[in-house]
C-alpha cells in the first residue's frame, strides 16, 4: 500500500510537471506559470514529511531523463533543495504573504538556475520578476481555495 502511494505521488508530480511544460510551451508572453514549482512550495509549506522525498527525487529523475539536456540528477537535486528551502523559511518565519513572496522569489531563482547561470540578466530578469508576481498570485489563490475546501 505504501509503495502504491509513493508510485501514485510520483506519477502525480510528473504529471503536474508535464502540464507545466505544456502550459509554458504555449505561453508566448514574457513569463511562465510554474505550477510544478508551486506544488513543490506547497509540499514544503504544508505537506512536508519524510515520505515525499522519494517521489520528488523520482519526478526529478524523470524530468532529467526526458526533458533536459543536463546531467541526470541535477533537477532532482534542485527540486529537493526547493522543498528544503521552502520548509526552512516557513519554519523560521511566520506563515505570512511576505514570507510566501520571499519563498516564491528564492525558489524561482533556484528553479531557473541553469538559465540564470548561462545568460546575462537582460535575458531573464524581467521575465523572472513578472513570473514571481504571477506565480505568487497563483500560489495565494490556490492556498485560499485549499483553505476553503478544508
Amino acid at each position, binding site marked *: 500500500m505504501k509503495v502504491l502511494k509513493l508510485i501514485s505521488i510520483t506519477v502525480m508530480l510528473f504529471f503536474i510537471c508535464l502540464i507545466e*511544460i505544456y502550459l509554458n510551451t504555449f505561453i*508566448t508572453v514574457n513569463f511562465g506559470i510554474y505550477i510544478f514549482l508551486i506544488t513543490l512550495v506547497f509540499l514544503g509549506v504544508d505537506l512536508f514529511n519524510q515520505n515525499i522525498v522519494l517521489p520528488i527525487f523520482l519526478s526529478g529523475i524523470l524530468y532529467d531523463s526526458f*526533458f533536459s539536456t543536463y546531467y541526470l540528477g*541535477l533537477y*532532482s537535486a534542485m527540486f529537493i533543495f526547493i522543498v528544503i528551502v521552502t520548509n526552512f523559511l516557513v519554519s523560521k518565519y511566520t506563515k505570512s504573504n511576505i514570507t510566501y513572496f520571499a519563498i516564491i522569489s528564492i525558489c524561482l531563482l533556484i528553479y531557473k538556475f541553469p538559465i540564470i547561470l548561462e545568460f546575462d540578466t537582460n535575458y531573464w530578469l524581467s521575465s523572472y520578476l513578472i513570473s514571481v508576481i504571477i506565480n505568487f498570485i497563483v500560489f495565494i489563490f490556490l492556498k485560499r481555495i485549499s483553505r476553503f475546501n478544508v
Partner: protein
Amino acid sequence: MQSSQAVGIRKYILYFLFMFLSGLLTAVDYFSNKSLSNYIPNQVNLISSFQLSDRFLQNEFINLSSSKTDIVAENIRLKEELVDLRLLYIENQELKDDIDSYETLIKNISNFELTYYATSLILKNSTEEYIVAGGRDNNFEPGDIVVNENGYIIGYLGEVFNDYSILESLDSTNFNFRALDKNNNSFEINSNGRELLVNSLDLSTLTKVETIYSDIIFGHIGRFPFLDLETYKQNITNDKLTMIVEIDQQLSFQTKLFIPKEK
C-alpha cells in the same frame, strides 16, 4: 531549545541524503558520457504514447449516447459526422500547409540530393530548448542541421532519442555553430539568448561578409544558408572580425521545420 533545533535539522537529513544521491548520479552521468540520462528515453517512446487517437472525440459522444433516446442518438450520430468532417477539414488544412511549405522549401533550396524530413516543435523545456518530433526512428543524429521552409538553418539537433530530439535553436543556451562565407572565411557563432555573437576563426580576405553557410568541412550534411550579415556592423580588429546579430526570428508551433538527410 537545543533539542528543537536538532529536530529541525534532523528532519532534513533524508532530503540531504537524496540530494547527495542526485549529485552522485550527476557525477556518474558526467563520467559515463550521459549513458545514465539517456537510458530511460532510449527504452521508452514518450511522444508517440501521448498522441491521441482521431476517434477520441467521437468516443465521448458514443459514451454519451448510450443512455439517451433514439432521437438523441441520431443527434449524436450527426454530431459524430460533424466531428468527422471537422477532423477531415483539419487534416486537409494540415496537408495543404505541408504542401505549401514543401513548395516554398523546393523554391529555396539548391540541394536535391538530400531527403528532407518534415518535423515540428512539440514542447519547450525550462532551459528554452525545443523538443521536436522524430528521433532515431528517422535516423536523426546529434548535430543534424534543422532548416526552415526558406532553406535557412534555424538550429541543429543537440540530443536524439527514440522518437523525439532536442533542438539547439538560435536562442538556446548551448548554441554553437561554425559556418563559411563565399570567400571561405570561417566563423564561429555562439548565442547569449538574445543575440548571436559571430567571430571569425580565419579571415583570408578582408572584404565585407555577406551570407554565411554551413559546410561539409564542419561535419554538416551540405551547404545551407545560415545568416545574412551584410546589413550588420562588422568590426575588424587584429584581423579578427566580430559581429553581434540580434535574434529576430521566433520559432512557433506553426513553423515548418525540415531535417536534411542523405538518401
